């Protein structure tokens, strides 16, 4: 039987990851990384937020993108679950609705990598010249 992974293996992996990360600057300050929040309340989970979050994690892992992916509660957009919030370093956060795998893929390809906004944005939390 193959050896079962332990925390010791994690320590070893951490060392290689640390050197990998320090090659790219700004890695140890989370606010300088891409931040993704997945809405994970009953409404989100029932609509497949777990699959969306797993997919995002796997895809970011596969493409070696440094990001911080965390969970958040219901943002009040139950009609458009699963919803995610994407914040690029130095930019305002953007909330996307109906994020199944295909849209998550688009968001990673175009928003996170190329910096272009994608269809499916939920407006409402943004500051406009009037409410600033």
């Amino acid at each position, binding site marked *: 039987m*193959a050896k*079962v*992974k*332990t*925390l*010791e*293996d*994690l*320590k070893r*992996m*951490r060392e290689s*990851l*640390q050197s990998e*990360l320090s090659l790219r600057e700004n890695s*140890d300050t*989370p606010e300088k*990384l891409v931040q993704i929040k*997945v809405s*994970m*309340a*009953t*409404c989100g*989970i*029932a609509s497949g937020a*777990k699959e969306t*979050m*797993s997919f*995002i*994690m*796997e895809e*970011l*892992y596969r493409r070696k*993108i*440094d*990001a*911080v*992916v*965390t*969970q958040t*509660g*219901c*943002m*009040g957009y*139950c009609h458009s679950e699963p919803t995610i919030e994407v914040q690029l370093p130095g930019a305002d956060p953007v909330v996307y609705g109906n994020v199944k795998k295909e849209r998550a893929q688009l968001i990673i390809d175009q928003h996170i990598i190329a910096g272009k906004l994608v269809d499916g944005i939920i407006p409402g939390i943004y500051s406009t010249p009037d409410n600033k």
Partner: protein
Amino acid sequence: MRDLSMHILDIVGNSVRAKSTEVKIILMEDMDYDILSLRIEDNGCGMSEATIKKAMDPFFTSRKTRKVGLGIPLLQQNAELTNGGITIESEIGKGTQLTAVFVRSHIDRPPLGDIADTIALIISGNPNVNIIYSHSFNDEKYILTTKEIINSLENVSISHPKINQFIKQMIEENLELIGVEL
């Protein structure tokens, strides 16, 4: 909710929202007694007697973003379908303990689901909460905590996708080792 993993993800969300700093997820499977129990203990803000009663009501929620709260009622329904049930104990300021008991072999018992993925997502997704995950299968037990992972990580973020994948695989392998049917 298609499986128990989703219920866990959901109920832990309640604990996190109640400002817990530590959440225990205790799964026990016992073939002799034919029982599968799920217990979630937190040290969050707790609830009063009256609120506990209301928590089982689908049209009660403490949040302001919407008017229904289905998390606990859905879990209760699934547990009761297998002749099991749920209990909630809570004290204001101390925390809440929720226990759901299922008859393990009952045809209506939801499957465990992708438990390794779910626990890894909970641990990575809530970096500021110490998650204590304990899964026992008959006499064997596997325990993993956020704290011990963070201790092995130093300054690398627990929410990093690479770490998340590792945690998932580690849980999978260890559960397999103690005999959990994944």
